[in-house]
């Protein structure tokens, strides 16, 4: 693992995916995926739509079931046992394209719900933690509003804070900026960059190539359910090897 950026990556392994396959009915979405993620590593996954990149990270916290191969998260092998799955999910935070905040709860309640019910944290402590992370994403003053009263960018930052309140060891981002206006994309990316600088292990599905260059230690390009190419960002963007990657990059960076 080359040290692409100044941020450190440990030798400890966070996620191991080996020979993983997934089908939707007869459709083979993910094919022979092998991937090892070290603790502190920041990986950006890109590729055309339908290439299986979202499905891949959704398999890591078992939102999608894989049919073959194995996924090991934080030393726990992902099995169909519900307790096991809930344990892994509580260690892995996830942010969605459409934020998926709970509209019937205030921002603060959104953030304290999982710590209180899953971690059994006392309410007061959970609220303090929540306020800490809301300050971190720079919206402590919105704590008592409802998600519907916030802008898209604010909602996505709340979603990040909500995940962080569980003190996850790994964060998954599923196109976190795809549903946002350009002005709001920046505020969300800033939050993610800050998180990366603190050494969080991150897997991001995103089309923000600037973010990939700045933050990632590794960029993975997927097409048709396979990992086509992976490399450190410098090499990936300046010297792509596979013709498919070259075509993709020329299309998204071409204008």
């Amino acid at each position: 693992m080359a040290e692409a950026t100044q941020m450190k990556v440990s030798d400890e392994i966070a996620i191991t995916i080996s020979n993983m396959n997934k089908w939707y009915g007869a459709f083979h979405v993910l094919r022979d995926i092998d991937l090892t993620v070290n603790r502190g590593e920041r990986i950006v996954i890109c590729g055309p739509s339908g290439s299986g990149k979202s499905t891949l990270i959704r398999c890591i916290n078992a939102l999608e079931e894989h049919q073959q191969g194995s996924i090991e998260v934080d030393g726990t092998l992902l099995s169909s046992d519900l307790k096991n799955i809930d344990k892994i999910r509580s260690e892995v935070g996830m942010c969605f394209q459409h934020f998926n905040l709970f509209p019937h709860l205030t921002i603060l309640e959104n953030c304290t719900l999982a710590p209180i019910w899953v971690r059994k944290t006392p309410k007061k402590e959970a609220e303090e933690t929540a306020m800490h992370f809301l300050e971190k994403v720079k919206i402590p003053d919105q704590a008592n509003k409802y998600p519907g009263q916030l802008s898209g960018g604010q909602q996505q930052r709340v979603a990040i804070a909500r995940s962080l309140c569980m003190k996850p060891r790994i964060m998954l981002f599923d196109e976190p900026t795809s549903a946002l206006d350009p002005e709001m994309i920046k505020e969300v990316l800033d939050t993610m960059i800050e998180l990366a600088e603190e050494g969080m292990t991150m897997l991001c599905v995103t089309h923000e190539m600037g973010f990939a260059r700045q933050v990632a230690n590794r960029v993975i390009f997927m097409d048709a359910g396979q990992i086509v190419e992976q490399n450190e960002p410098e090499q990936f963007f300046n010297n792509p090897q596979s013709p498919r990657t070259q075509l993709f990059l020329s299309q998204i960076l071409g204008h």
Partner: protein
Amino acid sequence: MSDTNQHSASFVRTESIPEREPPYAASGPVKWARDNLFATPANGVLTIVAAYVIYLILAATLPWILNGIWSTSSLAECREILDGTTGACFSVLSERWNQLLFGFQYPEELYWRPSLAFLLLFVAAAPVLFFDLPRKLLIFTALYPFIAYYLIWGGTILTPIVAILGCVAGGYVYQRFVAGSFAAGFFGGIVAALVVWNLGGLLITEEANEAAVMTAVPSRDLGGFMLNMMLGVTCVSLSIPLGIALALGRQSSMPLIKWICVVFIEFIRGVPLITLLFVASVMLAYFFPPESSVDLFLRVVIMITMFSAAYIAEVIRGGLAALPKGQYEAADSLGLDYAQAMRLIILPQALKISIPGIVNVAVGLFKDTTLVSVISMFDLVGMIRGPILASTEWNGVYWELLGFAALLFFVVCYGISQYSQWLERRLATDHR
């Protein structure tokens, strides 16, 4: 702001335009009438026609109501007083008031008991309906079914106490084992409750019931609007949880549970309620062991509850389907287990969407309780059709009696409807 009038190609706004009030529009009743009643000639004609129709209706009914007689003891006497003029014989209501409310067999000296139970119903329902009230009041709500049972049916106090003990035992066993597995807790709880009830049942003897401080009143003596209220309240409060369970069961990934729920819902929905009620009154006894005599009231409650639960389940299924998939995924991704995700995330939102539908079913159910008059239970309609209209004094007073029944049901149903609208406003947090 006059910069824009100079027809130059370049323009730079130096200050933003301040917010202003909308232009002052004429207001007052004249303006309102012009906008709403006489906006166009056709509109004006409609208004006049509608006003005339309203006048005709009032002209026919008002004298009838205002000229009503309240204090005679038979229809013949009432007609004599009216002497051919238009007027209602409301005296049937005042003379048969107690029968209309309590039926004709409930002991007169005990009317205070169901009346008290009715008043306490409001205290018990308040914390459920208005959740801003202190949560401690729910303790009374939990005890209310037992208190109401004791007040209405009387008998030995051991009956409600054994019932409470059974529930407590069941709850305790459930709490104890639910951490291990939900099925163990659930079925363990039911078994524990049944054991306590059966053991407790040995303590309750016929003599104890007869010697009790509160005179025992058998179910067949219940009647009047009281019976409608009892059936309505019991069945609504039982069918909502059952409906939620059926709706969730229908979505279950376990095929056995799913198919049990589907078959139950489809079968019950496909059968007329009146058929189910006949089953309750005649056939259900065949399914119970011969020595057990399950009360007719209980049998009817079971049937109406199953009937409306099937409808409520489908309404809630609609609410569940309306939630974006992302809500389930977000709940899952935070590590909430199924029960937590349902209770904290999914059901609060799905039930909110389902409020109009649930209220629709609840109102329908409440009115359907009058169908028990067909299986010779003397509810409000049963009293009117049976003992009152059949009596020599009041044979032929239809409008007053049925109008009164309609009014009572309207008041309750309108109240439910208003409450549900308040609830929807109260729960609106999406700020659309």
